[in-house]
């Protein structure tokens, strides 16, 4: 679904993350629980406020969308039973649909592409492809490679399910 304006944006986030988001009382428990809150331009509490105010651009441009580690601590603690992680997920999905570019988006896209195509993720292939998208990740990839390779933990095999068509169908039918 295209999200062309702010009102549609809010509606789409609520559709993806659940209407409970409307009950947010801005208590900030989510932000206080977040392991990366100190690095965020808009904390999770603020991010939810931006969504409720329909401020699409500000919400989608927040670095918090990509600093969320999916740890779900906010989600288990929210006194309103909102799942802030699902709000972040909704924003990531909208970024993906709109083809917004960032390193984070590139990583997410490569990860999803592998599942869509093969049904499984091959970690070595993923790191290699990400390296092409973001050459700045070379040092980290090399450091990790030096640790993992001698221990037989790098596999160049491309992992694949036996029936990739079944996985493709799940993406086609359920991502609408």
């Amino acid at each position, binding site marked *: 679904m295209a999200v062309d304006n702010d009102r549609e944006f809010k509606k789409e986030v609520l559709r993806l993350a659940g209407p409970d988001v409307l009950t947010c009382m801005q208590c900030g428990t989510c932000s206080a629980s977040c*392991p990366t809150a100190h690095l965020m331009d808009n904390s999770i509490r603020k991010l939810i406020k931006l969504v409720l105010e329909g401020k699409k651009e500000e919400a989608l441009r927040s670095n918090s969308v*990509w600093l969320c580690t*999916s740890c779900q*601590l906010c989600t288990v603690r929210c006194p309103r039973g909102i799942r802030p992680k699902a709000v972040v*997920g909704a924003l990531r999905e909208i970024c993906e649909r709109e083809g917004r570019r960032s390193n984070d988006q590139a990583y997410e896209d490569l*990860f*999803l592409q592998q*599942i869509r195509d093969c049904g499984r993720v091959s970690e070595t292939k993923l790191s290699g492809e990400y390296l092409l998208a973001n050459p700045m990740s070379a040092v980290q990839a090399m450091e990790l490679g030096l640790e993992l390779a001698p221990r037989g933990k*790098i*596999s160049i095999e491309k992992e694949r399910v036996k029936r990739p068509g079944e996985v493709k169908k799940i993406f086609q039918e359920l991502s609408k």
Partner: protein
Amino acid sequence: MTKLAYYPGCVSKSTGKEMDISTRAVSAALGIELEELEDWNCCGATHLPNEMVSTGLAARNMAQTDLPIMTSCSICYSNLRSAVSRMEEPSVRARVNAALAKPYQGAQVKHVLEVVLDELQKDPDKIVVPLKDLKVAPYYGCLLTRPKGGIDRPEFPTILEKLIKTVNADPVDFRLKTFCCGGPIFMPQEEAAADIAHKILIEAKQSGAEVIVTLCPLCHLMLDAKQKSLELKYGAAIGIPVLYVTQLVGIALGLGPDDLGLNRNCVSPMPLLEKIYEKMAGEA
């Protein structure tokens, strides 16, 4: 003999090989027969924002067996569990099942931690290597207990300490035991993730632990495979081995380093193992 379906997950083929090796070895030693899911797919880990697709991927896995499904990965475990609860909603189940080749008809999902704990409590005589006085940092990470409603409380869980005590080791008081390792964002957000993982390692050292035990291959990667680069980055040695829970239990069951893939851990647990064996020889 207990028979379970086994969902190894994608990392079992690469960075988490020792998780898979030790899971199979410990299961065999405990008399649990594992039947690998016939055509398992990725659960989407933490990179699949669409909850319906995530539910569909999990349901496809779960529809492949009538047995309870065991996994050693907290991320897979959390995703399967979330899907089970979403599939309780009839409209979700109908929509997801329409996209599946074989319909999902309910499933029971287990983490290897609870399976192993159950078996050891039934038959404590299987523990042949005493780990007495071994100081272990119980590191839960996030997703074993999240979302809530799983095998333990999301705040202050104790099931891992229970297992550590069952193998006669000492769980240390570890404040950051449920603090996120930063793993899910470590590729694109390197700095943020490194900072978190480093905090956890330092806290484990300060708590007096000789070893950290993990339940998730991503936590393991952050604390073990990245430990050397974190030492360089922050300019201080850490040198604490990080074992999968199945490796710790395997040692207590008398399994050898090859059985448990101990040579694959980046921070070598061999000095620790020698110490354990020496102590046992001394007491014998």
